[in-house]
């Protein structure tokens, strides 16, 4: 269970989040819907510890994670796929997927098991494996970013506008992959942001709207 409570965040002196609270239960699929600049990316970066909270708290499975540094959140089991995919271009796709698991110091067999699981959910990643990440299209890169988040996201996965800029065929495949996640990861809390609710309607069980840094349940 991932919970944000009364989160207030400023970026460069401008208030972006004003008391945002919501919960993603274990196994929950929650959509966070809002226009550009509404605070979606800021919400996810706050959950990842990449922005300081002026007020409020972050909780993971009932434990206070507010002051856990960003680089320890992956260790807590939070996987994150940022909006601009942010892969490491000079690494192969496989090395991009392996990096967070290796950084955590997971044992070789465990890493292999997780990689197989990710390949099972996203079979195209196995084909891309030996290719340099810089050579992928935007849509293929989004798939890799999802896979990378799943490598460490054993408790929560945050996906920032995964459908943004995807070609229709890829968007369909991405949606299919998300649907497979429901069965494969029944305990993982998944939070997905998007600017339009239409794409996610069939994939989520709760929709939260965010506008000017304030949320309301739709």
């Amino acid at each position, binding site marked *: 269970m991932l919970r944000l409570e009364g989160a207030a965040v400023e970026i460069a002196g401008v208030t972006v989040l004003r008391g945002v609270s919501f919960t993603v239960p274990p196994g929950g699929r929650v959509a966070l819907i809002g226009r550009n600049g509404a605070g979606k990316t800021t919400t996810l*970066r706050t959950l990842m510890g990449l922005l300081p909270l002026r007020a409020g708290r972050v909780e993971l499975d009932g434990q206070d994670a507010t002051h856990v540094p*960003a*680089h320890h959140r992956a260790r807590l089991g939070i996987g994150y796929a940022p909006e601009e995919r*942010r892969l490491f271009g000079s690494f192969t796709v496989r090395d991009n997927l392996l990096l967070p698991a290796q950084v955590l110091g997971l044992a070789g067999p465990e890493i292999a098991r997780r990689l197989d699981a990710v390949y099972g959910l996203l079979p195209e990643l196995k084909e891309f494996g030996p290719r340099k990440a810089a050579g992928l299209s935007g849509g293929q890169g989004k798939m890799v970013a999802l896979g990378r988040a799943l490598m460490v996201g054993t408790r929560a996965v945050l996906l920032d506008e995964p459908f943004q800029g995807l070609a229709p065929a890829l968007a369909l495949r991405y949606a299919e992959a998300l649907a497979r996640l429901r069965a494969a990861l029944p305990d993982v809390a998944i939070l997905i942001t998007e600017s339009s609710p239409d794409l996610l309607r069939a994939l989520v069980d709760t929709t939260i709207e965010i506008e000017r840094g304030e949320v309301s349940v739709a």
Partner: protein
Amino acid sequence: MSWFAENGLLVGLALLDGLSYAAAVFMVAVGLNLVFGVMRVLNVAHGSLYAIGGYAAASLGLFVASLGAPPWAGLPVLLAAAVLVGALLGPLIERLLLRRMQDQEPVLQLLVTFALFMILEDLQKLAFGVQPVVFDAPLKWLGTVDVPFGADAIPFTAYQLYVLPGVALATLAILAVVLRYTLVGRMVVAVTVDREAARAMGIDAAKVTLLTFTAGAALAALGGALAAPTVSLVPGVGASTIVLSFAVVATAGLGQIEGAAVAALLIGLGRSFAVYVAPEFEVVVPYAIMVTVLLFRPQGLFGVAETRRI
């Protein structure tokens, strides 16, 4: 043909000189490049580490020699002095100063590192004096080699022929392997490419930065230590080194380890040819090379233009 017959030896000497000079400059420039990569701070004081490395190595070498150590001991002393300078000053500078400057305006960063450079320059004068320091025991111990060049042979010191380029090549090879094939190297690359994404993947970016800065400081100090036996150390050596390594980094393009080696060769050779052929242009040649490259390739010879986003 007749010019070459008359000046052939000069060309050979310029080649050899340029090679050993390029080796020392590469050691400084590659560290500057790595540090800029992870911190996005152009550290003007990086040249001071070269100067202090040189002075520390020469002083330690003279001291050890005065204790009656055999002449070969000069070589490990050079290495030890560089490691010492890097391990002491690197973490100190990163922790106390540069870490606090990371999110500041670039102008402020430049001013602060420039101030640090001035302070270190004066501290260096306090510690090592302003008289030229000469420690050429390793140079003398290794003797000279006759390098065949056409029908002639050029006598050249074995130290400059083997040790300087050898250490630079070893550094290049080690860095390339570490950055490409080890986890810690991949973490350095990840922080360089995208600090925030790296942190989200579980990488302790602050620790990676400290490690990289310390390694960069030790490399600069090693460059100074290796160059020490070939020059007499005087105040101001730090300034000329940092400016030259800026030229190398800009010519190569940021984030390019092998590129920095090629650019160091280009600029080292260019400078030494100027010394022999047209000495009045010695100072200008490195920057003329840099400006020419940047006019046609603003991202540097090997730099990659911003990758596409979508």
